């Protein structure tokens, strides 16, 4: 039986006195691509922040591959196997594209796999280059990351997260702001992640994009899990339609 990659159990979290997550509960199985949708302000990014350690829950429990995360710092969660991207790309602008991924490989993957790497003779530079090849950025590795286009910045977000060798990858609106052709490219990239056996939690506003590549879909509202299930079933649900798509009540 497969292990749960991530578990939220009645989690409450927010920023200062503002509570965003109100008893959020869900499970993500290992190896699945788990999509998250919901209206603006429903707590999707806050959920990723709570999972990656940017904020701590005030109540409830978050675990990842059987390990409770509540007390762990963000860098410890990365070394445990959680990689994330940001809704607005945050490249290390003073560094080249390669150095961006190398930093993740050295501090995330490198620290985690130090013993294994020493035995196999593998280097962090290989991990960093592999992530760039898999995301189509290998040719731009020496470019200053601040000079990349939006699509390439989004790719770099994914490459950097991959270079930290995560078991659970958190994608925060990787297709946002892209043209249709670019969205297709990034969707193919995410679909490829499933084949590489990553577990993915993917937040996206573009429903069509989500339908193509997710195994299950969760709809959130006001910091809660409203409905989780097969993407087609979730999208067909009246509750989701009313909440997310703002259907008229006749």
């Amino acid at each position, binding site marked *: 039986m497969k292990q749960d990659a991530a578990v939220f159990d009645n989690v409450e979290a927010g920023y200062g006195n503002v509570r965003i997550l109100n008893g959020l509960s869900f499970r993500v199985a290992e190896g699945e691509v788990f999509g998250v949708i919901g209206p603006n302000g429903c707590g999707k990014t806050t959920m990723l922040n709570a999972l990656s350690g940017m904020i701590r829950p005030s109540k409830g429990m978050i675990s990842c591959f059987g390990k409770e995360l509540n007390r762990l710092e963000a860098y410890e969660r990365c070394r445990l196997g959680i990689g994330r991207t*940001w809704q607005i790309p945050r*490249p290390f602008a003073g560094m*080249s594209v390669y150095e961006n991924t190398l*930093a993740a490989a050295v501090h995330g993957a490198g620290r985690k796999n130090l013993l294994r790497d020493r035995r196999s003779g593998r280097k962090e530079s290989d991990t960093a280059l592999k992530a760039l090849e898999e995301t189509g950025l290998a040719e731009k590795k020496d470019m200053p990351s601040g000079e990349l286009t939006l699509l390439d910045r989004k790719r770099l977000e994914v490459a950097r997260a991959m270079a930290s060798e995560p078991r659970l990858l958190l994608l925060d609106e990787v297709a946002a702001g892209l043209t249709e052709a670019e969205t297709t490219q990034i969707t193919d990239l995410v679909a490829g992640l499933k084949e590489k056996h990553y577990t993915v939690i993917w937040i996206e506003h573009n429903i069509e994009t989500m339908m193509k590549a997710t195994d299950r879909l969760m709809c959130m509202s006001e910091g809660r899990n409203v409905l989780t299930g097969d993407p087609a079933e979730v999208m067909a649900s009246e509750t989701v339609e009313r909440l997310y798509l703002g259907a008229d009540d006749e």
Partner: protein
Amino acid sequence: MMPAGDRTKKGLIVTGVLFMVLFVIGITGIGGSNVLRYGFRILLYITIGEMWNLLSGYAGLTSLGQQAFIGLSGYALAVATTKYGLFYPLGIVAGLVISLGAAFVLSFLLLRIEGMYFSITTWVVAEALGTLFMSLMYVNRGAGMTVSAEPYPRIGTLYLMALVLCFASMITMILLPGSEFGLGVRAMRDDVQAAESLGVNVKRSRRIIYLVAAGFTALAGSLFFLNKGTIYPESGFDIGWTISMVFIVIIGGSGTVAGPVAGAVIYVFLSEILAHYPGWSNMILGAIAILMILFCPQGVIPAIGAAVRNSAKRRRKGSDGCRELDY
């Protein structure tokens, strides 16, 4: 973008050559004691400038309280040599150990605080230390202490000690960006949260940098008071130390190794000229810093670098144009 490895090699070669030239000047005493005296001051200011650059330019820790370590090391040297009659190198070591101990303890308080609040708290801590030393009978309160170095080091010896310290600080700054640790620090400089989410232990990195900066600053403080011969609370814990560090980094250029070198040279010569205008000197230095921030915010060294690159580009374009005409 030049790879970090190439930049490191180039930096080490340039620094090595410069070190050899300055070492020969120190050994032979070419130019006389005045050259060594100016050189000594410049080398100390380069050291504290590089360390403030490390703190602020690389780790985002804008400390206004680095004078705490200058004062502590100066007093440790004075107490060790005057009260206990120790040989002055032991006093310098004592200053280093006490400053590192204080920095380690303080880091648990200070590194929990972010941004402007960090800056203000570091200043308050340094001021509090100054006030404490002003009231401690053990260090003669405000009457100050003498550094009794026997035998008293000659200016040539002081110059060579400052040279070694300065180049150790520069080599630290050159090796940092290309190292594994430095990669994390540079990531942290650009985006703390993103760096942390990729496995960089931000708290540990900041603590290491804070300790390294405290250590080098303390050693520079010891050498300064070894040369001066006396220390008072208002000279050891003077905010003027931090003002000079900030000025040096702003003028020279933040985030570069060469920036504080240029900044320190400009600062020492400017302060020497302005010493003839007491009361006006700080105002003029402040005005120069403001003008630099407004019109050349990147500092002298990055501005020169950009100008050289632009001129090379223009030359290339010009020669391409000639080729077109030839055809």
